[in-house]
């Protein structure tokens, strides 16, 4: 692999993380919190360190697919490590693995927390947690690509390794312009949500936090009381959770007025799933005593569906108390996840489409052995390579799932807790059911289980392969 280039890119990441830390630094300054110095120093040190490392420009700038995977995996580990330091040093989360869990949960936009309560947590720390969602949502390397002219066409390997979905398409010919457009859409949508939340009467600090956390489909809340906001704000958040979980190509095509192409098979199925889930869950929960009426049931039902399908993980109500059908469907939605090319997690709607179509094709071939039939999506042939990689993804997903469950079961918690804890981390959602339900947290697990969940979150956000390849012995064999 290209070690010079790897170190160079890690140096850029370090410097950028320093820049990102200016956000909590500013927050601490505004609220006169004593962590101001900590964040200011960390930020300066990271910028300086990154600056020094990037002084040494590597001669060989060629990157191959393997380098792309490894650089992305290492970048995310490094980012999480630096991101965890403020929690650890300030004493907000004294234990290192806990701090790492919180940071990884932030960057991978999971939103699973080990904090028992947000009471007394400094505002700058809350801001840092939420802002990590925003950076992690679209991907930090994509961000760097949008800003810095990294040379050559090989950047596509980086983008591919960092972006969600089975096949990454470019919006425009150049990677850099594509990255820039993606961030532009991302930024505009975030600001739109922020403004609408302000109109709904949300305090500025909460509005920023919720907006960036929704944008990254993260799910850290910032109020000790959960989500004590007006129905208008709740509905705004619901809509934006759905929006951020849609494929960003959709918005690009809408802007370009290519409406027919915009409503792709994936988007249509995604909308169908939303409609189906809202209607059936509403019918299931409308008479529950926790709601004052059908209107409130609909609002919270839609919110919860948006939260779990988009892998955000906010909770307004304790959906663990809902009837079995709703809880089961919600767990299934967690697996489905968002669209490819969005900021959300999960298996992704387009993968399910490919899996389903390929399955029906195989059935047909079983009956008519000589029939030739290829998988098509939006009228386009799906490459055999993509189909293969989707199957490998699923196999890999199930295996990681099984091993994680086994390790977690050593903690002697119940099956539902373990099962949903892995669902919620591997799909970057946040809350699960039972002991990791919306009203509890992940501190119930032992350190070893937390490490496994950290791995699951990273694997889930980076679409399994980069992290798995980082750990595979064959990658490092000479």
């Amino acid at each position, binding site marked *: 692999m290209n070690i010079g280039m790897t170190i160079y890119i890690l140096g850029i990441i370090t410097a950028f993380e320093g820049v990102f830390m200016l956000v909590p630094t500013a927050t601490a300054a505004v609220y006169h919190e004593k962590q101001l110095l900590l964040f200011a120093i960390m930020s300066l040190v990271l910028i300086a360190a990154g600056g020094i490392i990037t002084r040494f420009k590597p001669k060989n700038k060629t990157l191959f697919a393997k380098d792309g995977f490894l650089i992305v995996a290492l970048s995310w580990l490094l980012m999480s490590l630096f991101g965890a330091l403020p929690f650890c040093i300030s004493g907000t989360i004294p234990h290192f693995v806990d701090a790492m869990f919180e940071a990884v949960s932030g960057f991978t936009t999971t939103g699973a927390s080990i904090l028992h309560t947000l009471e007394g947590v400094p505002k700058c720390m809350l801001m840092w947690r939420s802002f990590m969602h925003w950076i992690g949502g679209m991907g930090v390397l994509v961000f760097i690509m949008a800003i810095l002219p990294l040379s*050559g*066409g*090989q*950047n*596509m*390997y980086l983008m591919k390794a960092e972006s969600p979905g089975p096949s990454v398409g*470019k919006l*425009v*010919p*150049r*990677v850099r*312009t594509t990255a820039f457009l993606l961030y532009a859409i991302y930024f505009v949508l975030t600001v739109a949500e922020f403004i609408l939340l302000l109109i709904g009467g949300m305090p500025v600090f909460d509005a920023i936090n919720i907006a960036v956390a929704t944008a990254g489909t993260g799910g850290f809340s910032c109020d000790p009381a959960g989500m004590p906001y007006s129905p208008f704000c709740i509905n705004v958040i619901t809509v934006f959770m759905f929006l951020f979980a849609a494929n960003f190509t959709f918005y690009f095509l809408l802007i370009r007025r290519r409406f027919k192409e915009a409503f792709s098979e994936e988007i249509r199925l995604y909308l169908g799933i939303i409609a189906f889930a809202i209607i059936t869950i509403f019918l299931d929960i409308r008479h529950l005593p926790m709601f004052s009426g059908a209107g409130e049931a609909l609002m919270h039902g839609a919110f919860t569906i948006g939260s779990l399908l988009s892998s955000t993980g906010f909770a307004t109500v304790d959906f663990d108390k809902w009837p079995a059908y709703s809880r089961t469907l919600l767990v299934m939605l967690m697996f489905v996840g968002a669209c490819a090319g969005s900021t959300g997690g999960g298996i992704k709607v387009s993968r399910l489409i490919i899996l389903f179509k390929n399955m029906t094709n195989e059935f047909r071939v079983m009956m008519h052995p000589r029939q030739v039939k290829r998988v098509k999506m939006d009228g386009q*042939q799906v*490459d055999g390579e993509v189909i293969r990689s989707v199957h490998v993804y699923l196999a890999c997903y199930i295996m990681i799932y099984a091993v994680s469950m086994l390790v977690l079961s050593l903690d002697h918690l119940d099956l539902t807790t373990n099962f949903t804890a892995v669902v919620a981390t591997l799909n970057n959602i946040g809350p699960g059911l039972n002991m990791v339900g919306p009203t509890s947290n992940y501190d119930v697990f032992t350190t070893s289980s937390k490490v496994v969940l950290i791995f699951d979150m990273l694997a889930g956000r980076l679409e399994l392969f980069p992290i798995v390849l980082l750990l595979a012995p064959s990658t490092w064999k000479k």
Partner: protein
Amino acid sequence: MNIIIVGCGKVGRVLAERLNEQGNSITVVDINSVRVNETAERYDVMGIAGDGVNHKTLEEAGVAKADLLIAVTGSDERNLLCCLIAKKAGGCQTIARVRSPQYSDEISYLKEELGLAMVINPEFAAAEEIARLLRFPSALKIDTFVKGRVELLKFKLPEDSPLCDMCVRDIAPKLHCDVLVCTVERGESAYIASGDFHFAPHDVISIIAEPKNALTFFKKIGYKVKSANNALIAGGGDITLYLCKLLEKSGISLTVIEKDSARADLLSDELSDVNIIHDDAANQEMLLREDIDRADAFVTLTNLDEENILLSLYAKSVCNGKIITKINRIEFDSVIEHLDLDAIIYPKNITSDLIVRYVRAMKKTLGTNLETLYQIIKGKVEAAEFIVQEECALTEAPLSQLRLKSGVLVAAISRDRKVLIPRGSDTIRRGDSVVVVTNHLGLHDMNDLLA
């Protein structure tokens, strides 16, 4: 600019790479999806798998907003049709590659009638380059500027050259001739020559001069300056056909070796003054029978790069003449360079040079227009000819007072049919053609040279 390239073959890829480096948005179209994916991944361009003559495919590739479409698929007819459709669908400029000799006489008619911006025939361009080399065998490569009034010549210093003890500054006083040394390649590195640069054996040197001054220069440093008297050509493809036609009246006696009997018949019908031998070019006995050891020039133009290289290596061992090798496909440039094969012709680079030049000239410029462009050293140094059409910052002061970027050499100025090798006291004026050698690639306006 938005550029669509139809066809991801050798030339298509080179074009995608070079045009993308210069900041254009490229979309490549090819019927073979594997090839499209490979190209798109390697060069940061958008790839569309589909038929380039299909209107829908072109639409998808964004023909409506494209500035230029370049058709370089394997088939001439496809290329022409593709350009026609693109022109109707999007109104963009179009460039087609048309290589078959059956169209070569009608190129200007086709260009006019079909409204094409440019028609390229790489085989013909390659033949022209080979013809120049046969007329002046001491050079490795000859490019011309200002309608042939200025030549850029590349040659290699032998062990015992009188130049070896000199530095660049000594040339004018010691040899009394007006040439300008532009670049020197030594091993892997390339230099834009400054005054105190010392020559060493095996350096590959590029000079710029008027043709007659170049001749004197070569005479003084002990090179042969006569044109080749006879040439042996291995392979009877299209380049050979064009080459023989170009050299018909030059007095060089030509022998062509062609393996395929039908093709040999056709060649002998077309080319009455040329000896056609029907045999495998790799037949050593035949080569000796045709006096390869006494040939002034040996040109390998078979379809196999490997065969060309091998034949040239053999020829080098038996004869002292000029050896020219065509290489089409192989990419191991550094290895080929080590073989020390004398002159090498890369038709795909010739094509991409021509197109890149056109693309750069299309861009709006501030008063200077790009006319000609060559890569002197691949991917490192370019020579470009500009016409200064208006007064601008460049015309205000003598060269020594202009604050040029480093790595820029103003190599020649042509004014009123006279060529001037500029010194510091000379000033660029309106209407001049200026040749610049620089390692800042991707120039399209001379004002970009100012620091």
